[in-house]
């Protein structure tokens, strides 16, 4: 039995009140153009501008099920859908007394109650929602698939409270499985547990601790050795941005260029957080760090960050992608593609990973910070596959939120002026424009131009 269920997510702030969802629902459920048949309902007709649909939430402990005297309503343990059995229903409508969400209501046209059933896992309303206010989240499927797999990290981690890395490393190793060799260069991860305490490692796969400078080359050697003795292992590096973009870049660039069969994950927390929050090459403009303090002479980092994923894209890698753990479905899809690609050549995954201590935000907001970075286009999600030669946005943001909504969450940007924020906005906009141009014209063209 699954432990989590897919859900129909409503983002009311994106809704434009067009009512396409109602029309689509009435059509598919009752083959009618009368929206009275729709299971999803717009709130409308009020003086002020307010929109948003209401729909059954498929409650965990549904009041409607418990108050049905005819046993016509049941919660399906496999799908999580609250199912209504027409043959058993006596139309007493007592179920409607218990529901605070207008999830089940009486339709006078058919003289019974009606409710949403997610169209069997492919909701019609989601397909027609242009502003993407409706979303069918299948992340539950990810958890149900990953849940039974072995957790290859120790039960205790020594990370800061609210650190995003725990969810990242557990999911990554679970997904890749036990036939993995892990390289963890200096950074937060070895201290957290990957290299371990005294003589023991915190991982249940072989792991080693290369230097910052030679991670990719050591790992390449390990992978080649295993290949020679006939064992197929996944060679995985979990490096910070220092170990990937700065100090570790020479060996990384070399390994990528040679097409070594490894999966290199850069956990980008935009600085040397492990050693006291010094700036790195990926620290964004204006960001406070211990080496770019805010005072009379300096206002955070004076230079822009380098955009590492595109640099790696130009290395002829098999696979390059950006990812966040906040979009777990997307993250696992990319892990899978990167895993497969690492058997053919070099795969590079750039994971944006906020740091509660160094960025100064509350520990319970790690996921929210990532979401805002994505919806404001600060960290666009895309992937590139060499076999198709195409760069593709995996979570396109058509109407990005202003970057201010992301910046406002972070203490490291607290001192920024309007102009400085505008500069960050411009940087983000330019980057998305460049990525879109690559998406439109293809990577090969870009290489030809450059």
């Amino acid at each position, binding site marked *: 039995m699954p432990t989590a269920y897919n859900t129909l997510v409503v983002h*009311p702030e994106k809704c434009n009140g067009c009512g396409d969802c109602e029309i689509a629902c009435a059509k598919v459920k009752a083959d009618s153009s009368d929206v009275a048949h729709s299971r999803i*309902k717009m*709130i*409308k*007709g*009020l*003086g002020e501008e*307010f929109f*948003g649909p*209401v729909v059954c939430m498929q409650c965990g402990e549904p*009041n409607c099920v*418990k*108050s049905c*005297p*005819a*046993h016509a309503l049941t919660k399906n343990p496999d799908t999580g859908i609250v199912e209504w059995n027409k*043959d*058993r229903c*006596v*139309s*007493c*409508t*007592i179920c*409607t*007394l*218990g*529901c*605070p*969400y*207008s999830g*089940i*209501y*009486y339709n*006078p046209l058919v*003289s019974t109650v009606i409710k949403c059933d997610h169209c069997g896992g492919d909701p019609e309303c989601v397909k027609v929602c242009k502003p993407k206010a409706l979303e069918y989240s299948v992340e539950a499927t990810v958890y149900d698939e990953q849940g039974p797999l072995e957790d290859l990290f120790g039960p205790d981690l020594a990370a800061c409270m609210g650190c995003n890395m725990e969810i990242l490393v557990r999911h990554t190793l679970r997904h890749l499985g036990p036939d993995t060799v892990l390289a963890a260069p200096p950074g937060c991860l070895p201290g957290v547990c990957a290299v371990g305490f005294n003589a023991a490692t915190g991982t249940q796969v072989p792991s080693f601790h290369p230097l910052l400078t030679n991670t990719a080359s050591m790992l390449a050697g390990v992978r080649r050795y295993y290949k020679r003795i006939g064992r197929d292992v996944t060679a995985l590096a979990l490096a910070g941005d220092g170990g990937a973009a700065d100090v570790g870049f020479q060996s990384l660039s070399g390994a990528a260029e040679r097409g070594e069969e490894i999966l290199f994950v850069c956990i980008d927390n935009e600085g040397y957080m492990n050693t006291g929050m010094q700036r790195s090459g990926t620290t964004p403009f204006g960001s406070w760090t211990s080496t770019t303090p805010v005072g009379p002479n300096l206002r955070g980092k004076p230079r822009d960050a380098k955009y590492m994923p595109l640099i790696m894209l130009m290395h002829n890698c098999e696979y390059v992608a950006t990812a966040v753990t906040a979009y777990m479905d997307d993250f696992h899809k990319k892990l899978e593609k990167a895993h497969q690609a690492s058997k053919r050549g070099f795969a590079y995954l750039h994971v944006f990973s906020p740091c509660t201590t160094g960025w*100064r*935000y*509350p520990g319970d*907001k790690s996921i*929210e910070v990532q979401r805002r970075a994505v919806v404001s286009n600060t960290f666009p999600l895309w992937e590139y596959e060499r076999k198709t030669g195409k760069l593709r946005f995996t979570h396109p943001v058509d109407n990005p939120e202003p970057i201010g909504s992301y910046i*406002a*969450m972070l*203490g490291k940007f*607290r001192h920024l002026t309007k102009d400085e924020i505008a500069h960050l906005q411009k940087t983000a906009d330019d980057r998305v424009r460049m990525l879109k141009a690559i998406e439109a014209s293809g990577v090969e063209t870009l290489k030809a131009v450059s």
Partner: protein
Amino acid sequence: MQTKYLIIGSSHAGLSAADEIRVQDQKGTLTMISMENCLPYSPTILPYIVEGKVEEKDIYLRDEKYFKDNKINYLRGKKVIQVSTKTSKVTLDDGSEIGYKKLLVATGSEPTLPPTPGLKESSHLVLRTMEDARKINQAAQNAKSAVVMGTGLVGMHAAEALGKKGLTVELIRGRRRAVLPNYFDNDSGDLIHKVFVDNGIRCNLDHQVTQVEGKNGNLKVTVKDGTVFETNMVVVGTGVKSRMNFFTTPDVELGEGILVDNMMRTSVKNVWAAGDVAQATDFFSQKKELNPILPDAFEQGKIAGLSMAGDPAVILAFEEIGRQVALSYPGGVSMNTFNFYGNRSFALGLSLVEEKDDYEVHKKNVPEKCIYQKLVFQDDVLVGAIGINITIDPGVMMNLIRRGIHLNKARDEFIEKPLDMSRRLMWNNWRGVVKIGR
């Protein structure tokens, strides 16, 4: 026999408690006693059985597998005749005894008979158990006419069901006030009354029954003004009372029902009560009152189960704070739905209140279309509502009432467009606004 948890009764309250106990405690022995020899069902379904809307085989709330999977010892066809709280034992009608550690009384209610001369001896019918429903159906097969005494939910449902079977139905009520007096005010009651009359039900209000006599399809009902109704069957739906006659020693505090606190505990240790049989706090008056309705039954059952299984956090919070905690009983609110001849209606909260002192009442009455809407406010908080054939989510309104949501400036708009406005208000209240601070 000895059991850790003993539940008497197997309808909504009992089942809901069993579910909750099994969430908290998967191992403790759990025994459930049903006085009827069948799987659990809801008494609310019975009028629909009489009407023929649903078949007997389709109504059971749980199957055999449920009891097996949840390790519940389900004793059916056994009646409890005595509960001894001193020795923590109950005695069944077959003479056997069951010892318990924790007891939940969820026995529901049983019909009451008015003190009408001759009624007790006559072959009258009631509607509270499956057996009653079968008897009514059997009697109706050969009957041409029926007298229904009482205009509560049972009486009205029975009148409609028998009328649809082609019987001539005389509906008799002793007082002047309109039908369904516990839920609907005079105006809305009159609307419902009219629909019944239009559908051929003969309604005799203000006709006290003075005598009932006769047996087996041949009965005579005499009313105050001397009129005599000769009929084939008499159905009595004049009210219910808590089924608690097995407390022979007066140690458990009893009122009209079994008195319970907000954790459904009775005055005696290790004894809980829930559902129709329990007399719990009323939401508005904060006094102990009966509220024999289905939604309350499962909610009380759930709280009782939680309390019996003893979730330490909940119990501790209740003991120490001494007042409501998140999962204690918030107080019963009267609510019901009533669907008749294709019309639908509901009544919530203080639905009977008329304009006075603190209350403000807004009505919309369209008798020719059988549409009625009544909203009762106390200041800017909704406290009651009635609707006949209007499109409103009763559950949303119910939550506005129970959460005491202030409508503020939205009140006029709410009166104008209750459907959209109520959904919108609930929308604001069920989703916490994500606040991000440093």
